């Protein structure tokens, strides 16, 4: 998707804090993220890394205990103007247009994200009418088209069935159809294939890629699976404990990881081309977000941690190439060299 690089979403220093009875948890700790038109951005991280919270903040779907406490989320709207989503109230009328309209979302659990007492076509018709000002008849046609588009056989029969009559893969297709009904510019897909079998997963990944190509829709694809990421993403951001530790093109991240966490994560995956090698596990556990380590969040588990530096200051992102940013003190020398030549 080179050529047109129209930026549709620019996130700067976004922070989200949960106020809990045990204390405040900053689940998203000042992150930057860019999404261009027609681009698929992968957001990778283990559980507790803040990847889901971060994307829910983009459409103000956070629970009431969570507050966006810093940063801006600049969205280029359909009309060409720019709005800062971070400044709009979650119940604001404008937010209702954006959420599900300009930015749509699909979730992990296709079994529980459809209301069991409504026919399959209902949420598609509803979304289409809400965001596109269509009549009932027109919306039903849109729904039939979409169901066919996402690969559901016999859409005219399926549209009046109930969710329990559909398999997991088909329900996820229906969810995608619901999300597409408003013709969104950005689709947030939160682990959309995690609950599905590999064969169905492959079909859904193909479908998302086709939809991107056809509608020039952008996608933020959240997953913990680096295999899935390497098959679908253009750019990748790796999250750890609320921070983005490394960003780059999918090639940068998968074949040339610069952050110790990213390389460790890649080494931990069983790979078919390395069947008899012992897996390298990451020592220790992810620290509790209530007791976030000072400095670089990964230093407690990092074998290359530099004493006196990593546990003290959070490293700034350093450009190791034009597309590749890494936040790690191991690259301090390169940063100094770069600033020296700049001066």
């Amino acid at each position, binding site marked *: 998707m080179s050529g047109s690089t129209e930026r549709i979403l620019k996130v700067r220093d976004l922070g989200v804090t949960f106020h809990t009875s045990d204390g405040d948890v900053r689940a998203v700790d000042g992150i930057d993220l860019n999404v261009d038109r027609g681009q698929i951005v992968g957001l990778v991280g283990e559980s507790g890394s803040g990847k889901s919270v971060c994307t829910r903040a983009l459409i103000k779907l956070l629970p009431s205990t969570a507050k966006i406490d810093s940063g801006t989320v600049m969205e280029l709207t359909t009309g060409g103007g720019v709005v800062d989503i971070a400044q709009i109230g979650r119940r604001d009328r404008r937010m209702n247009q954006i959420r599900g309209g300009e930015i749509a979302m699909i979730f992990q659990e296709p079994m529980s994200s459809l209301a069991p007492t409504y026919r399959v076509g209902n949420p598609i018709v509803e979304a289409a009418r809400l965001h596109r000002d269509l009549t009932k008849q027109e919306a039903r046609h849109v729904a039939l088209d979409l169901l066919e588009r996402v690969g559901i056989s016999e859409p005219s029969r399926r549209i009046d069935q109930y969710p329990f009559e559909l398999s997991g893969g*088909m329900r996820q297709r229906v969810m995608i159809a619901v999300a597409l009904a408003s013709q969104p510019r950005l689709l947030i897909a939160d682990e959309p294939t995690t609950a599905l079998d590999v064969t169905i997963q492959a079909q859904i990944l193909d479908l998302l890629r086709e939809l991107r190509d056809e509608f020039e829709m952008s996608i933020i694809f959240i997953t913990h699976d680096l295999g899935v990421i390497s098959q679908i993403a253009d750019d990748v951001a790796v999250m750890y404990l609320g921070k983005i530790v490394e960003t780059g093109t999918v090639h940068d991240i998968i074949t040339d990881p610069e952050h110790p966490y990213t390389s460790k994560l*890649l080494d931990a995956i069983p790979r078919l081309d390395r069947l008899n090698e012992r897996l390298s596990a*990451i020592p220790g556990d992810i620290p509790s977000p209530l007791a976030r380590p000072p400095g670089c969040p990964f230093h407690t588990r990092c074998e290359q941690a530099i004493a006196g530096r990593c546990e003290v200051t959070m490293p700034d992102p350093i450009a190791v190439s034009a597309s590749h940013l890494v936040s790690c003190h191991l690259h301090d020398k390169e940063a100094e060299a770069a600033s020296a030549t700049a001066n």
Partner: protein
Amino acid sequence: MPQPTDTRILDVEGLEVHFAQRAGMFNREVGTVRAVDGVSFTIDKNETLGLVGESGSGKTTIGRSILRALDPTGGRVDFHVGNEVVDLATLSGKGLRSIRQHMQMIFQDPYSSLNPRMTVRDIIAEPLIVNKLCKGDELEERVRDIALQCKLNVEHLRRYPHAFSGGQRQRIGIARALVTNPSFVVADESVSALDVSIQAEILNLLGDLQDQLGVAILFIAHDLSVVAHLSHRVAVMYLGQLVELAETGQMFSRPRHPYTEALLSAIPAIDPSRGMRRIPLLGEMPSASEPPSGCRFHTRCPYAEDRCHTDEPEWREIEPGRMVRCHFSDTLELRGADDSA
């Protein structure tokens, strides 16, 4: 009846688990779900047999029926204990209870499979107490030993499960399963709920424990890379039947059943330059209550011919140790997982 051998742990022969499908006001039987329909395989001492298949293929039912959490409706499960061979499929009462210490299960979800009201020490000790294997100092020592082997901190044995992370909880579950020194363990999706960094640690631990204790493992999972990593041999299941069984390397480099090929091609390679060359499977898995005629895979098989619609292929050995259920295994040229594009 098979004789005890030095190497064999389990001989499964024609295992069947059928469930009655009931409906209506009087709960009449309206059909039969053939969840497991004539499955045969063997497991040796110290061996890990991987079992893969899509959801609904019946792989969990196999594991549960061997351990007799479910009652099989047919077939034999010959379990070799010491110098004896017992048929687990028909065993009941006292006989079954006395055998339970030799076979255990490691569960999928480390959050719901541990009783939150019991300390870790009690959780691990429970199988020893229930089976009346030891008590007093001997029991405490056994619990500490297995906890150490599972890399748990013995200082933490008096804590409750909520104080532990997912990876630690799974290690508690493993310690509990292995504390009676079983010769056979079923691990059903035991690493699926864990993050990759933790998953690697648990896979390493399972491999190490097998080397130390010589336990045989039936490793059930949907993630083929995980299965490949841990298993010596792999069995592929489709709609209640095994379609292929082979040594791991052979299976992944040269599958002999079209379903295996399709499964392998759907694994997302961790290499963006490779891209997916997947073989699309048409449609969805048919219902296990009305399996298709002939070969059960023919409705989705890209190579299906007329014969596949009518004749059910036999479960046959095409090479020593390689079993397959397909009419055309000898002629099809199927792609493995590591073929380059």
